[in-house]
């Protein structure tokens, strides 16, 4: 245990995902010996992320204004809507360059073990968007694991009767994995080879 501020910083860093006690200590002492201007920039970035970043009121992606960059882009089509679990999945799919439609970020997947049911996800909002009639195809791009598959099945059962095409990414994605860890080529091909469900 160190005293005062340095221990506070180690404790806070240690609460971040993927940062163990040893790394927390290393980062804290790095910050202590770093140039004050660098530390200020970091502190500003931390404060700004909470102050400025919001969630897009249309698709629930992260945004810096009412709507995110994808929703504001007039060149993209409203006819295809891609449903993902997290904002980081939007980034992964954008990297493939294969998709020119819009997104809907659920904010997770159905996961009874963690007490997450349909009501805890942005599913009502999705149904509302789909209900306007503008969307022709819905792509279910939830993670290729148990919870992602269950969420995709749930949405397919709910939305198919509304008369639009519902597709799921093709296999080839690592089973039990996260979309964000799939490389651009694999994910791009899964996108191209999506199939109706």
């Amino acid at each position, binding site marked *: 245990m160190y005293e005062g501020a340095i221990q506070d910083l180690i404790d806070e860093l240690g609460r971040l995902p993927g940062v163990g006690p040893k790394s927390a200590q290393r980062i804290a002492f790095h910050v202590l010996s770093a140039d004050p201007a660098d530390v200020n920039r970091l502190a500003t970035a931390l404060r700004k992320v909470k102050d400025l970043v919001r969630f897009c009121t249309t698709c629930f992606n992260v945004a810096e204004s009412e709507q995110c960059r994808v929703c504001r882009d007039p060149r993209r089509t409203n006819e295809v809507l891609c449903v993902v679990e997290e904002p980081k999945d939007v980034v992964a799919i954008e990297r493939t360059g294969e998709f020119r439609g819009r997104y809907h970020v659920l904010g997770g997947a159905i996961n009874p073990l963690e007490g997450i049911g349909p009501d805890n996800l942005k599913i009502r909002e999705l149904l509302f968007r789909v209900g306007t009639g503008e969307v022709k195809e819905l792509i279910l791009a939830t993670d290729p694991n148990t919870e992602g598959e*269950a969420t995709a*099945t749930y949405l397919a059962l709910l939305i198919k009767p509304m008369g639009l095409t519902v597709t799921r990414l093709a296999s080839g994605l690592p089973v039990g994995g996260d979309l964000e860890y799939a490389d651009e080529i694999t994910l791009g091909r899964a996108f191209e080879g999506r199939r109706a469900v």
Partner: protein
Amino acid sequence: MHVRRVELTDFRSYERVAVDLDPGVSVLVGQNGMGKTNLIEALGYVATLDSHRVATDAPLVRAGAASAVIRCAIVHEGRELLVELEIVPGRANRARLNRSPVRRPREVLGALRMVLFAPEDLELVRGDPSERRRYLDDLLVARQPRFAGVRADYDRVVKQRNALLRNAYLNRKVGGTRGQDLSTLAVWDHHLAHHGAELLAGRLELAAALAPHLTKAYDAVAPGRGAAAIAYASRLGEALQADRPALEAAILERLQERRVAEIERGMTLVGPHRDDLALSLGDLPVKGYASHGECWSFALALRLAAYDLLRSDGIEPVLVLDDVFAELDGSRRERLAGLVSDAAQLLVTCAVPEDVPASLRGARFDVVTGAVSRVS
């Protein structure tokens, strides 16, 4: 396939040991507690990333040491593969294949294929159905690795579905409405039936393929006491066929029938996680009827049958028989020796060398606390 060399550092009772092995038979001789099983356990760990004796890694590391290392050179079809495993209790193991680190230790599975019979295997016969399901599933994965994924998916679905049912059960107890929690149950039913049918079909096919090997193996180690038989026992019905769509439909139908009971008990009551492998001798079930000796012979026969089946698939696993011959009388020793003497590699342990029949005299190693030396 054979193990050419195994080196242990701080594994169990061994501080450092290196043993060079030849194809064919090797007999490890040592008094009780000298470390014969420890050596075999290390090889088993390379094959399965699991101990056949303990559920946690801590006992595998020599008392007082922080980590254990197993280094194992395996020769298969003329090519040598070096597997290195570092076991650090409470942390993820590290593995290297031919000196390059692998991302996940699981990637070394398949490098060494091994069938091990040990006294602990009596539990296969005497223990819970879960022991026999594990026996079937391990063999299924050894023959068709994709079933490792099927098993993991199925287990995960059961866990999630149980959580859903349990939440609904608890909610109902405090007077909540249950429709809301259970709105996703149909989805989990669908996935349970899908993965369950795939696993079930795999097990049914396996049990059918295994059955004649089992009868033959039991007859070899314990002749003249009635034929031994196995049959897959599912609550879905008798004489099920390995037809996935039909099994999926059967699971869905049974889920409907058991819906109320499942909600009342807050758990999944339908599916292959509730099945068993029925063992019988002559007209009688083994459980509750067979003698100690018969149970032991049956356990040995289950392992020998697995070995035989893998060989008939063209895989030549290493066969390990820990403390087997002391339990058998003279004529049965000879019969067992006849059954296994042509193994690509056979490792046998014993306390008294005379217990091992002359037809199995290969290389001999003496095991004395912490040291293994070749004597012939």
